[in-house]
């Protein structure tokens, strides 16, 4: 498995773990009555902003750990340069990811239009964000494996 494939695998893992842990924490707070996300949209904004910060810091930590383990396991300290093939693969993966998020966005709007509670808009945003990221990294792995 190439360095880029491993990198994408780590991204998928960190995306799932970070989102799952954070969602669980928020869910427990909601159940305990510490926050009310059913009507308070300002809280949703705060939850999203904290999630963005937590996600960035956690990813940096996971990436550093991955790099250290990779160097120890492969004894290759040099990270391969990003070349035109990497950029093309990233571009196609980003396109797939954006299509996925667009579908999620429309599903959220449809959910609103059929009378579902407004907080479903945010929940569907989170789900489509995670799925689009999985599609991004999964597409990259596919293109690296099968060719582009």
């Amino acid at each position, binding site marked *: 498995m190439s360095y880029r494939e491993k990198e994408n695998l780590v991204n998928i893992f960190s995306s799932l773990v970070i989102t799952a842990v954070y969602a669980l924490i928020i869910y427990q707070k909601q159940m305990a009555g510490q926050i009310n996300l059913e009507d308070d949209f300002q809280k949703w904004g705060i939850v999203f902003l904290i999630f963005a910060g937590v996600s960035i810091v956690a990813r940096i930590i996971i990436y550093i750990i991955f790099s250290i383990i990779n160097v120890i396991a492969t004894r290759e300290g040099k990270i391969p*340069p990003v070349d035109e093939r990497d950029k093309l693969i990233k571009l196609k993966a980003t396109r797939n990811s954006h299509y996925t998020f667009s579908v999620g966005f429309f599903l959220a709007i449809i959910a609103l239009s059929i009378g579902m509670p407004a907080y479903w808009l945010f929940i569907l945003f989170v789900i489509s964000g995670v799925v689009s990221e999985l599609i991004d990294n999964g597409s990259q792995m596919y293109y690296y494996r099968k*060719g582009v």
Partner: protein
Amino acid sequence: MARSNIQNNIRRFRFDANEMTQQQLADEVGTSRQTIVAIEKGNYSPSLELAFRIARVFSTSIDNIFSYKP
């Protein structure tokens, strides 16, 4: 993913160039080894610029290395 119509004989040129490794060629042209592997296997068609750089390493013209088979 459909295989590219562009075929190449980089492998033969590498062999003729004192058995140059894929990593050495990658370093010469400024790409990763994986990209050279993908080009040799026909899984990736390089840009014109990269094709020129590869040809330059072997001191030959592009059409000696790459050919188009529709």
